[in-house]
């Protein structure tokens, strides 16, 4: 057996599987895709040869939302096993069906080019203070690209970046923003492309080191997770990393941020990376409820039980993704909220896409807003 897989089985405690099928019952994908079962994949890993596992299309169907891990009575870390499986599958030429013809993956791989001179900071206007060198760095992520790629479905993920900088500025921080920042590599990693993930990571680490930053703030939970968990696994990093909701929450506690009132009923979508991957549930809620007069209605399934936005790493978007999204949006709508507060650009793209289509019923349509944007807009004096 492939030694990497063997190790992953061991590390993820897959041998502990008691075949209860709780994972399958929990899995949002399995709910719609009846051919998909985490348990079966775990058992394929344990019991049969590599190829049987690696060539199984289902290894790409997992959203890595970690819901199963949350519930597994045996404590198996399924998504870690999935990651290794994908890395190994990629090596033998297997790959997922990439959305948008693989345009996103191409973008990321192009970003591995060392001499690239991106023009990715056009959106930074006079009102935003940024710098080239400093203690704190704001990691923008792929937002500028997303807004172009998804211009047809009215997403504006860059608002979150602007809002984050605005908040940092308000807190007296002039963050470093890197003109030659690269994709963090999250999506390449999760689609099994270790080679290019490494290149991106190296480049980012070098650039950040050059800037002199010691602390990195993220608005994107995927970037946050990648820097917090994955980079240290492979590279020597000594940055402090923080999500913007953590920054906001702390500032609110310290009384550094004063917010205007907003008379709205809202609900909140926990991003998988922020929630289950990193355990950040309270900070966003604290931020939201800091706005006077706002009412937060939780969805039926929230926090640890929250449901994913349906797609991960630009692959295997499918009819099941759509069903997951519809169900989740309906759940949001059912809270009688006016606004669905999001905290991840991917959630925004995926939900907007689901709502964009003509057949999407009214019961699954709800206005969305990024948490940071909402906070930035609520800042007093704005």
């Amino acid at each position, binding site marked *: 057996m492939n030694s990497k897989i063997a190790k992953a089985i061991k590390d993820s405690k897959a041998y502990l599987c008691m075949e209860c099928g709780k994972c399958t019952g929990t899995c949002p994908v399995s709910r719609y*895709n009846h051919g998909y079962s985490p348990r079966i994949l775990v058992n394929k890993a344990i019991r049969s040869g590599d190829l049987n596992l690696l060539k199984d299309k289902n290894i790409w169907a997992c959203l890595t939302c970690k819901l199963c891990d949350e519930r597994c009575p045996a404590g198996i870390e399924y998504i870690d096993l999935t990651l290794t499986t994908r890395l190994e599958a990629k090596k033998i030429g297997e790959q997922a*069906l*990439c*959305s*948008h*013809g*693989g345009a996103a993956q191409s973008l990321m791989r192009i970003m591995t080019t060392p001499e690239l001179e991106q023009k990715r900071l056009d959106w930074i206007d006079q009102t935003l203070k940024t710098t080239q060198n400093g203690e704190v760095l704001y990691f923008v992520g792929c937002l500028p690209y997303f807004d172009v790629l998804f211009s047809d479905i009215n997403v504006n993920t860059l608002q979150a970046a602007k809002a984050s900088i605005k908040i940092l500025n308000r807190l007296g921080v002039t963050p470093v923003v890197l003109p030659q920042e690269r994709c963090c590599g999250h999506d390449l990693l999760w689609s099994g492309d270790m080679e290019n993930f490494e290149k991106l990571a190296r480049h980012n680490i070098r650039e950040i080191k050059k800037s002199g930053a010691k602390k990195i703030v993220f608005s994107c939970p995927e970037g946050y997770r990648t820097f917090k968990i994955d980079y240290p696994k492979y590279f020597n990093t000594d940055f402090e990393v923080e999500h913007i909701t953590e920054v906001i929450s702390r500032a609110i506690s310290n009384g550094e941020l004063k917010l205007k009132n907003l008379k709205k009923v809202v609900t909140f979508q926990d991003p998988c990376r922020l929630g289950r991957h990193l355990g950040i549930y309270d900070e966003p809620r604290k931020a939201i409820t800091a706005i006077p007069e706002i009412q937060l209605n939780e969805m039926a399934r929230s926090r640890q039980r929250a449901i994913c936005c349906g797609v991960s790493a630009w692959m*295997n*978007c*499918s*009819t*099941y*993704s*759509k*069903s997951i999204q*519809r169900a989740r949006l309906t759940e949001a709508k059912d809270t009688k909220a006016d606004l669905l507060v999001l905290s991840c650009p991917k959630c925004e793209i995926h939900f907007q*896409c*689901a709502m*964009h*289509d*003509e*057949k999407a*019923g009214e019961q699954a349509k709800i206005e969305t807003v990024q948490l940071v944007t909402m906070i930035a807009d609520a800042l007093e004096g704005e």
Partner: protein
Amino acid sequence: MDVGRHPNIEIFANSEVVGVEGEAPDFKVKVRRKSTFVDWDKCTGCGECPTVCPVHIKDEFQLDLSKREAIYRRYPQAVPNKFLIDKRGSPPCRYSCPAGVNAQGYIALISQGKYKEALELERRDNPFPAVCGRVCTHPCESDCKRKDVDEPLAIAQLKRFISDSEQELSAPSPELNKEKVAVVGAGPAGLSAAYFLAKRGYCPTVFEATDHPGGLLYWAIPRFRLPEIALQRDLDYIKSWGVEIKTGTALGKDLSIKDLQQDYKAIFLGLGAAKEKTMGIEGEDLQGVSLCVEFLNKAVHDPETPVGKRVAVVGGGNSAIDAVRTVLRLGAEEAFVVYRRSRQEMPANEEEIVEAEKEGIKIHYLTNPTKIFGEDGKIKGMECIKMKLGEPDSSGRRKPIPIEGSEFTINLDMVIMAIGQAADVSFLTKEEKFELTRWGTFAVDPDTLQTNIPGIFAGGDAVTGPATVIEAIAAGKEAAESIDRFIRGVDLKADRKKKEDRVKDEDIEIPEELQTEKRTTMPLLDLEKAKKSFEEVAQGFSEEQAKKESDRCLSCAGCSECLECVKVCEPNAIVHDMVDEFVDLDVGSIIVTTGVDYLDPKEASEYGYKRFKNIYTSFEIERIMSEDGPSAGELPLGKQLKEPLRFAFIQCVGSRNMRHDINYCSRICCMNTIKDSLVLKEHYPDANIVVFYIDIRAFGKGFEEFYNRSLEKGVKYIKGKPSKVIEDGSGNLVIHYENEQGHSGQMIFDAVCLSSALIPSRGCRELAGVLGVDIDDDGFYKNMEPATAPLESTKKGVLVCGCATGPKDITDSIAEASGAAVKAACFLEGHELPVEKKEIEQVDVSGPPRVGVFVCHCGPNISKVVDVKGVVEYAKTLPDVVFAEDYTFACSETAQHQIQERIAEHKLNRVVVAACTPKTHEMSFQDSLTAVGLNPYLFDIANIRNQCSWVHQKEPEKATEKAKELVRMSVARVRKLGPLFMKELSVNRDVAVIGAGITGLRCGIDLLQRGFKVKIIEKKELSGGLVRHLSSIYPSFRKGRNIVEKLLDEFTSAGGELLTSTELVDVTGYVGNFQVKVKSAKGETEFTVGAIVLATGSELYDPGERFGYGKYPNVITNMELEQKLISGEIDDIKSVAFFQCVGSRGDDGNPGCSRYCCQAAIKEAIHLREKGIDVAILNRGVRVYSKGAERMYRKARELGVLFLPYDGEPEITGADKAEAVTIPSPDIDADITIPVNLVVLSVGMVPAADSGHLSELFKVPRGPDKFFLERHSKFGPVETTVEGVFLCGCCQFPQDIGDSISQASAVASKVAALLSRDKITLAPITSTVIEEYCRGCGRCAEVCEFRAIELVEKENGVFVAQVNEALCKGCGTCVAACPTGAIDLKHFRSEQIEAQLEALFEG
């Protein structure tokens, strides 16, 4: 399907119908296939031949604005894609040459620097180039067309040049294995006969009486004119063909005819004319009097030959000049010529005379010796008489007559008589009974040169008497042909190739831009040196001179028959002696679509066309502005523009002009000008463009908007016809016109385009005669009735359409053409049976790919540039390639067979052919795969010819590299390909027509006649639409109601079903299987049809309260007027004003022109005017364009109908009734008020109120004007984007009756073609959905213009896209729209394209 490859279409290009007999449906047609000189079965269209063609003549495709080769195809995409040769007859030089030597040919080759080839060509007709290049009398030069420009070409000298430039004698030394032939006499005739016989493989032996071959060339032409070395070269060449020459063997002495007959199959007698004539005057026997040839015989070979001090040579031929110049060189103090006629009649070559004169030789013209006198038997002098010229004699020259009493004497010590020779063959008659002429020459058959004794032929001077070298050569050549026939036992005369006709003078191109250039003069030996030596005087052309001289050739005959094309044509397709062919056809009906020509604007001479530069026709502008045009898309102004371009269009050049006898509107020119103005604006954004026009007739769909666009772009329109265009001396063109103020004005332009009238095509009258159909007053084909029977000619079974019946645009022509097709089909029997398909065992392709690569040389087309073997070796290294090899022509039948064998042998399951473009042979290779059971879609072509070897000719290494890359890409692609299968759909053969106006009825009738069941669904109670309510139609003035009733009667009696008062409820299904649900008083019914025709018409604009409508009772619409005209309630009307464009060409109603109203108003005006009523038509330009309409317009003006231009709303005054109309008329500086007691609003056509509903029901999109949108504005006017749903008549856009009727028939044709088969085969390249990945977002359906994708609900709320393969056209835009990758295009799948990219960049 492409017309060039349609199995049912046989194309006769370059052909003419020359005879038609019989009646429909039994026409017997005779077609003349004009010779193309290229065997089209063999021609691959590779394009090698023009690269070697030396002839450059006007390219008619580029409207003579650039040049093409004599072997050509009209344009690169031509169908059929074959070459042909432009031959216009025998060029004058060749025609006038007795031996038919192809001078134009070798001159053309000289111009290309192909001297060897030129010489080779020369020697095809003449083995004596060195000789003839020096001593020929060159009749070719006398007829050279260049003399009309400046001076004839120095043809003979060019011939000498190619002979001189021969470095090494080409010695063919063939094997002669045929019969032996005897030739007697080694003069030019005999040697020529021997040469041509040897070339045919016979073994000729030449018997020569003297000890040297060459005849007079050797014995009597002085060396300063024909050096021995030159003669020897020709003799050596002849001998190299295996001709045996036996000198010193005289006939009659050393051998006899009998001997020869015994040993040889045939005999040629080329005995010459050895007997010299004398003058027959007193004193010829004196010492010092010589015969010319006798003298030269000696003098040529003996430079010590004694001559007198003062010598006269009598005669005017070349021998006389030769003699006198020889005498001079031998030391005579004075030598001169005595000639009885004038210089003009002198037969000696001009250059000879000139050279002689230069050498100081005097020629006494019009002088004739009367006697020679002497002393002691020695000459002392000669008495001569002066002559004058009388009437022409038998030779055509004026006869010299002695002037009495003008005798005078000259003192001399030598006289040479050079007055000619005669043949004397009488010595032979002793032995054989030869028939002789009264001149003592052989009597021979003039065509075959056979004497009275079979097998014995004669030619040269012995037959003709003394003649020229070239004539002797000609005789030898002719005799060789006869001897060949004689020996083969073939009739000597039958089918003997006749001399080709001389090219007609009018067919000879003399380019306008041709610069005069004098003939190149031959460098001569220094005069003083020349006079003293026997060195050759004429020095010959240098290479540069020869090139320059050859460039002067006009290429009179088009093709020069240099035969270079034959050499490069790999498939041996070129047949220079091809002849016209006649083909007889039996046909059931005939469609005439002979199109139009345009008036040569030279006829409107005031506009300076061809007199001044930069004046073009609109067709020329079309070519010029094309990047593939003569000047690559730029105006060839010939000057640098300092300011923005100034450009004028002059409209109606010839059109609507009695003076040119063109009483019609050419219909397309306004739009064409607007289009050209926009094209110019694109190219020259700052250009000032002015259009001079009479009326802008922008009457078609989208035309008005197009016109407005040009206005927005700043094109200026000036009403009026310029009086003239002149050039101001500095290259500017000045247009004189009447300006807006009515004053004479001038405007300056850099270039002018003339919108020349369209006129009946050349030969249309003759063809009408052949067909037995009538021509109308304008010279176009007459149709039965322009409005109701526009496609029928005056003869049953002969249909006329397109511009053959009058000018029209592509849209209307295409509609008419389809309409004519359905009419023609009514005379034809049965459909062709489908070909039975054999069941073949299918190759299993499930395993890993096993790719075979086959690389084609395409003759030299690929292999000349690309290293084909290298590509094959490379291909073998590519992944999954198990076999690779190359073929000379992969498309050939043998190669295809071999490929099939390879597939079996190597168990190939994927095939790549590296060859030409897939557009040419993809299908035939696919057929090959199918034949051996391999799915035809497991195949790819690497285009290494069109996109590699042909476009990288100068970079063979890089091209080879690219070819490898292309093959690598193809292999990568083919590895990812999967099998595809054709699907068939059954079709219902019934048709539903929506709308029972005349359009719907016409369409229904045509379909019924073609055997389809038709239901017409009409929501109203009455059929006939608007036409039912018309008092009459133009131009025939038939009653609208009668027309409707007749159509209705035809429809019902043909078995059509008319459902009136019936509403459409729902339509579902797709092409071949539509379910139509209708509702009437009787309730709902549902039925199935295969196709649906929308003929729902349009509605008339409701003026509301505009123009006093509703307010004044006497303001009515034109439809209301029609009612009055029918009911006759017009007695109290005295004066009528028509308001045109009410609800047209504006923001309210129809944004475009409603097309019918001008003509309708004129028709109505004529009605009223004929009743004595005053009529004024207030118009915004009079748009009459249909057949006969312009004449009707004239008639209205003749009748006194007033046409008043207006803009905005005219003012109507009156209390209860409209009493007067006032319109401002700035041009005559007054407001015009006309008293009226009736105002008629010519209301426009607007889309029917329910068109939006119908659009949704049928999914047929509407354009911005809300009329239904056709498939293609030009090429698909009656189809919609929805397969199986068609459009005709006013629901697409306003039409007049004739156009609606044509469209109705056009639709019938399309429907008939669609439903004529039981099954529709669907192309397998369609989109396909993986449902699992489909989000059901509908973006694919949104982008699909063909409505091929539908969202289908799978379960509660879950939708997936479904592709209807019957509707999918395979463009793949849906794939681009899909966010997830669920949809893909078969055969062009993302992974297949990505594989190509990966392969491309991996190297």
